[in-house]
């Protein structure tokens, strides 16, 4: 749209009559866009207060006669006007900035329907492709970090290609997936992450792999960020009601780049990056291997004697990590005519991780085009082939919940032994301990010999036809698909200590995912009177999601050096197929009155295959009202307030269940006797949809000065009848049972300030500031449960993601020291603090109190500096790494060993009457190895820390070379850029990076954010890039 207007103005500019004045001189210059540095043709240049004007040519160049002291005004639709005073220079180059308000005037919400910003009565927030690009993140979810208020994004860790989770407004399901729906050009696409299968007989019990064993990707990470023109985030159910149940947690609407008529352009980006681990735990180097102060070669722990002077102390941790190198090449060609346009892109990324032997690679080719058959019929389509592959290290607790992760193994390596010396001369593994099972794998063995690889081949495509019979009616049909095959391979080489795999093991998983979506949408917009406009949307959607999965496991390698299933003697296989279908019918009717009052009603009915037949059909909807008081009240054109709107909305959304939860399938009995038996999960033929009701109200202001926009939103929602699978009394016959139960509420505030803070001549300062605060509360959980926890988050023995009655959705459950009613520690008869094994109580909320994320962008001529400051206050993080180090004796906290101490606290005394009273503890005890290993390191109390941070998430400096440098070379633009990521991290957290989700991005419910254990620590890095366009 914007581009078309540009062209129109360019054509019109030739009609403008040029004139000149006697005392004038000739000014020449070039006008470029700050968006992408490209030349702007057709910009109007006028001497202020006169009719004297000119316009720029195809290269953005202009010539005008003007007297010194006069003012030149540069205007162009969609851009902010600029004024420049003519001085001594005869050359004036101008960079025009996009008019943020103008850009946002049209927002793509549901089903490719573009809506005027001012008619939208609920919170949506858009991010431009450029704002995503400057983050230099290859994962689109990471690129959104800090860009949208109310969106909480957590990177799982610093591994190459590792995923990130995204949750909007705190989530609502205790046990469901809380991540939003991802939609590309109107068609939903998959953003799942590896999660342990709950299919009968499958999962870690079969092949050992847990969600926390490997830092896997989230599927949206497959996308090429350079293909994205903009992203709109629909935050609440009101915004997402048309998308239906799958958008109950909000939606991320991605609009891709399209070709532009008449303008064939080629652009090439190259980026080279260097990454390092941000922070590593510090360890003591005083004591070496042993037990109770005595050297002991049969233990890996460092509870031995002190190092003697001159004895070698190996920096096993620091030596292990390396600098990761990444390069990214991206090429796009676009163009078109009045009838047809096209966009072609290719992308290649190759990344080496900070952990040796790990790597990540992704490739993408995309073709998209539109063709206008005639005035009322047009076709469009796109096809995107994507390929990603990773080679990753076993992390966290490794396989089978054992001790196979590389980092935990480092934490258990005594510093008197050179860990890097991991192979015997014959190539076999050098053992630290004689015992095969007691000696867990050397981390170098883990990364070299037990690689975890994955590869995805994916095709995302859609075709659409649009019929425009009249100016007020539009009919659109679109068929889209997201199809991929994912193959993962987990190697356990002979010689490993991994349980059941000591003679070699190979687990292969092949998943074929197919999602088809059919959307039929009719839209009508008509002004029925001069003041009243009516809009109508009617639509039907049919979705089918099918997964065909097979898990293979082969054990015992016949040739120890050959990796392949045929080389194994003991093979087993499991089939894991699933199919779900959904039909939706929806409608929206909207009224606007005199451009200031906007009313919108939406309704949808879904028919889901996953619910019992009697509950399969369910309806829901929303109502919203917007009042533009600046249009209604006489504020006058000189008012400081250019635009002001008040919104209120109420919405309800239903949410179905994943498939196969109605009945209770059997599973193979793999113990004595064989045959079939009951599976873990009890089905429920009474399941009904979850319901989320939400209220939202907001204020939107646009200030005339510098086009600064301020938005304030308050929301609250309540989700009832949650579909959860809590553990329950196994006397019921099952370990976990699907039930409807539990209520979760959220309420929160979002404030967004965006626009241009200062604009003066060539200088501009843009700011986007996002403030979010969400409070979730689990109002009830099904009786008689007191805690519902996510097993997938239970990565550290003493802590897990749990909800309790009255807690937040992302609460932490932990084993903690027992305390007297006044809060003092209860010290036991032995003089040490007391705790109850396996008693998990509320230990804080892992979600932040609030976040404030500010992106500042400074433009001066060809120079642009942009940086994102990310402030997070509150929330807890579990330092599981430190607990492992305390247990192994490497933690600095163990340097007090063998000292005498009196634990502050009280001793419980039971009186003759049976009443308990508390007296201060006076018993002096020694801080023994047993205390550190059996008390301190197995209780959460000492390892739950504040996760607050202030970080410079990125800073990007870009410089567009002046065109005169190029001479005859036909570059439109050459930009050099440099980015630093996470260069500054201020936090009180004593571990590596408090932004961590060590159990991966696939954990349901409250997610796995805030668990730091055994994963690749967060990284910092530098990117150097060059961007050429022809």
């Amino acid at each position: 749209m914007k581009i078309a207007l540009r062209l129109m103005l360019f054509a019109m500019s030739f009609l403008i009559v040029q004139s000149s004045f006697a005392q004038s001189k000739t000014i020449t210059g070039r006008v470029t866009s700050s968006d992408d540095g490209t030349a702007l043709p057709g910009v109007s240049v006028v001497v202020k207060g006169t009719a004297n004007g000119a316009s720029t040519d195809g290269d953005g160049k202009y010539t005008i006669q003007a007297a010194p002291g006069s003012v030149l005004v540069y205007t162009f639709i969609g851009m902010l006007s600029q004024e420049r005073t003519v001085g001594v220079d005869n050359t004036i180059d101008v960079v025009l900035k996009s008019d943020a308000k103008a850009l946002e005037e049209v927002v793509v919400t549901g089903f490719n329907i573009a809506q005027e910003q001012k008619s939208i009565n609920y919170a949506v927030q858009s991010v431009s492709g450029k704002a995503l690009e400057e983050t230099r993140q290859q994962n689109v979810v990471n690129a959104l970090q800090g860009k949208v208020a109310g969106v909480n994004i957590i990177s799982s860790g610093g591994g190459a290609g590792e995923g990130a989770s995204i949750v909007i407004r705190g989530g609502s399901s205790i046990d469901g997936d809380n991540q939003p729906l991802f939609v590309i050009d109107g068609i939903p696409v998959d953003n799942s992450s590896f999660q342990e299968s709950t299919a009968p007989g499958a999962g870690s019990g079969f092949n050992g792999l847990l969600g926390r064993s490997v830092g896997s990707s989230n599927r949206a990470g497959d996308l090429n960020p350079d293909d994205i023109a903009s992203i709109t985030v629909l935050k609440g159910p009101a915004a997402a009601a048309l998308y239906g149940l799958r958008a109950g947690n909000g939606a991320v609407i991605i609009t891709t780049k399209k070709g532009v008529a008449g303008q064939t352009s080629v652009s090439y980006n190259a980026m080279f990056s260097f990454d390092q681990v941000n922070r590593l735990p510090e360890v003591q180097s005083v004591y070496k291997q042993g037990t109770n102060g005595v050297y002991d070669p049969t233990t890996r722990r460092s509870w031995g004697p002190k190092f003697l002077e001159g004895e070698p102390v190996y920096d096993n941790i620091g030596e292990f990590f390396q600098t990761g190198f990444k390069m990214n090449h991206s090429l796009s060609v676009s163009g078109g005519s009045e009838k047809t346009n096209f966009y072609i892109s290719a992308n290649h990324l190759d990344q080496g991780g900070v952990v040796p032997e790990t790597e990540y690679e992704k490739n993408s080719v995309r073709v998209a085009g539109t063709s206008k058959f005639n005035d009322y019929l047009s076709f469009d389509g796109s096809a995107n082939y994507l390929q990603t592959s990773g080679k990753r290290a076993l992390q966290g607790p490794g396989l089978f919940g054992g001790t196979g992760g590389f980092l935990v193994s480092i934490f258990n390596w005594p510093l008197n032994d050179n860990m890097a010396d991991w192979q015997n001369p014959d190539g076999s593994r050098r053992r630290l301990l004689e015992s095969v099972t007691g000696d867990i794998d050397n981390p170098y063995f883990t990364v070299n010999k037990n690689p975890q690889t994955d590869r995805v081949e994916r095709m995302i495509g859609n075709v659409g036809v649009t019929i425009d019979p009249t100016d007020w009616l539009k009919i659109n049909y679109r068929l889209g698909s997201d199809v991929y095959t994912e193959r993962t391979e987990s190697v356990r080489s002979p010689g490993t200590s991994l349980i059941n795999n000591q003679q070699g093991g190979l687990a292969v998983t092949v998943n074929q995912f197919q999602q088809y979506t059919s959307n039929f949408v009719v839209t009508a917009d008509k002004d029925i009177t001069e003041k009243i406009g009516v809009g109508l949307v009617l639509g039907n959607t049919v979705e089918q999601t099918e997964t065909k999965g097979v898990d293979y496991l082969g054990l015992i390698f016949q040739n120890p050096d050959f990796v392949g299933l045929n080389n194994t003697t003991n093979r087993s296989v499991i089939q894991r197929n699933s199919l779900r279908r959904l039909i939706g019918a929806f409608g929206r009717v909207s009224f606007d009155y005199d451009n200031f009052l906007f009313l919108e009603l939406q309704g949808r009915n879904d028919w889901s295959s996953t619910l019992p037949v009697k509950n399969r059909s369910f309806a829901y909807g929303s109502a919203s009202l917007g009042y533009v008081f600046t249009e209604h009240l006489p504020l006058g054109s000189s008012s400081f307030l250019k635009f002001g709107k008040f919104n209120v909305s109420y919405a309800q959304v239903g949410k179905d269940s994943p498939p196969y939860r109605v009945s209770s399938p059997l599973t193979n009995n793999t113990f004595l006797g064989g045959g079939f038996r009951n599976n873990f999960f009890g089905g429920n033929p009474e399941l009904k949809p979850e319901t989320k009701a939400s209220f939202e109200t907001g204020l939107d202001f646009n200030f005339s000065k510098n086009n600064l926009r301020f938005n304030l939103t308050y929301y609250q929602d309540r989700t009832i009848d949650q579909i959860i699978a809590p553990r329950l009394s196994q006397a019921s016959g099952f370990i976990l049972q699907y039930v409807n139960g539990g209520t979760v509420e959220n309420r929160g505030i979002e404030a967004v300030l965006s626009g241009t803070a200062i604009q003066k001549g060539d200088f501009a300062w843009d700011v986007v500031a996002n403030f979010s605060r969400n409070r979730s509360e689990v109002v009830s959980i099904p009786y008689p449960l007191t805690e519902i926890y996510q097993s997938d988050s239970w990565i550290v023995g003493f802590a897990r993601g749990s909800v309790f009655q009255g807690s937040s959705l992302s609460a932490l459950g932990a084993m903690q020291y027992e305390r007297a009613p006044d809060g003092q520690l209860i010290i036991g008869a032995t003089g040490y603090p007391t705790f109850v094994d396996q008693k998990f109580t509320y230990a804080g909320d892992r979600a932040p109190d609030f976040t404030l994320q500010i992106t500042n962008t400074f433009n001066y001529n060809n120079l642009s500096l942009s940086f994102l400051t990310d402030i997070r206050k509150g929330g807890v993080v579990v330092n599981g790494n430190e607990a492992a180090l305390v247990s192994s004796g490497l933690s600095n906290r163990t340097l007090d060993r063998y000292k005498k101490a009196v634990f502050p606290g009280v001793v419980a005394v039971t009186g003759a009457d049976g009443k308990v009273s508390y007296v201060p503890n006076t018993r002096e005890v020694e801080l023994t190895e047993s205390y550190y290993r059996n008390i301190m390191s197995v209780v959460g109390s000492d390892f739950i820390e504040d996760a607050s941070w202030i970080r410079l998430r990125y800073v990007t400096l870009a410089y567009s070379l002046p065109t005169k440098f190029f001479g005859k070379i036909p570059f439109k633009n050459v930009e050099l850029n440099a980015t630093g990521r996470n260069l500054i991290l201020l936090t009180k957290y004593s571990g590596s990076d408090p932004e961590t989700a060590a159990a991966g991005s696939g954990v349901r419910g409250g997610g796995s954010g805030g668990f730091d254990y055994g994963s690749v620590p967060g990284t910092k890095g530098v990117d150097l890039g060059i961007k050429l366009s022809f």
Partner: protein
Amino acid sequence: MKKFIIGLCTVVGLGLTACDSFLDVNDDPNNPVSTTPNYLLPSIIGNGLQVQLLTELRVGQITQNIAGRTANITTDQYYFTPSNSTSTFNNTYYLVGSNIGPMIAAAEAEGSPYYVGAGKTMRAIIMAHLTDMLGDVPYTEAWQGYTNIAPKYDPQEEIYNTIFKLLEEAEAEFSKPATANKRPFYSANPVSGDILYQGDVSKWIKLINSIRARQLNHLTKKATYSADAVLAAIDKGIKNNADDATLGYRQPTSVESSTTSIWGPTRGNMASYTFGRMFVNYLNGTTLLGDATAADDPRFAIISPTLSNGAIPGAGQPSAPTVTDFYGGWYSTDNSPFPLVTNAEMRFIEAEAAFRKSDKSRAFTAYKAGITAHMTKLGVAAAAQATYLGSAAVAQSEGTLTLKNIMEQKYIAMFLNPESWSDLRRFDFDPAIYPDYAVPAGVNPNLGGKMVRRLPPAQTETQYNPAEVARMGWGTPDYVTLPVWWDKQ
């Protein structure tokens, strides 16, 4: 076709009734929700019998059949926590019990009464074991899935009535002719159905009566105890070693894992444990002959080829070898079968019941038959058996036979069987019967000097059924010393 339906549903749009079949795709394509009884019974038998041995990993420490090799193993010292009961409780209801109802229903529907009988027998066996270990447990509200996620606990007396009723009903089913069965009770290829007795119904009837005898024999403290009732059951029970209910441990296959013995080296359960000193003393002459240097019981070298000196509960094993000396005996190789209900046990129950009704002759005969049955089972040579039976370790006449004689031989024959704990409780750990039963070193002081008479509730029950667990009295420090119903006068 699929595409056509999608198209149809698109066109039909708001109508949609035509699309019902399009949505009928919610049956799991990977696993059936039901199957024929012959593919459910094997796991019910295998896992159902194995529950008792999982319990024995801890109960063996109470009976001092086994003990920790090092000092201060907490369970040796009677520090029991709910996690010690979790597998017993959960395997009973989830792993095993949840399959019995559907199997009985399927068998009744198709007309296979022997499967119904086997289901009821197994249900009686798992409930009997569970209640004997824990006391009051859920039954009337158990296995109700989503309709009752916190089942109430029933009194043990009612559970006992249920057990006897189940056994009676099972016997009636097995009394039907084979021709009344639609499906063979056992099939060898592929192996399915009755993996316990390979379809020999008469052995099931003997098992049913043996369980009945065992449970009736538990009631010695009750006014309703009847030695005649016990003996009546014994008369119809197992009389031959070949009829023992035996768990056939073996090497794993590609589809079955953890099939080796719980007591064997591969499962690794005994790495930190070995024989209890009390048990060793019965075999090495100390207890029965008053002299450790006297001739060993011929079973000693068979059960413990290294002639272990055993561990003292709470104190550990003096001069402990670097690896446990538990493995390699008759009970403790990977492929060792484990007999759970035996001819030997029935003979000692018979001896006790006959003794109580003063039929000393029958008691003496049964006593010696019990010793012989166990020795024969272990492969003791006839000559060695005769030597032992003639030694001072064994009562030589019905006139000199005591309950102590009966119970000490039963204790030996019931090695690693949690049923042995019921005997200890019935005799109140009486030193006159069990002279070598030693209070562990560093015994849990919270128990107030009392013996352990029940296990704690399961860990998961304390979390997910807290009200019922509290109603049982869980929370008091000496909970495990509270006697179960039959253990009270």
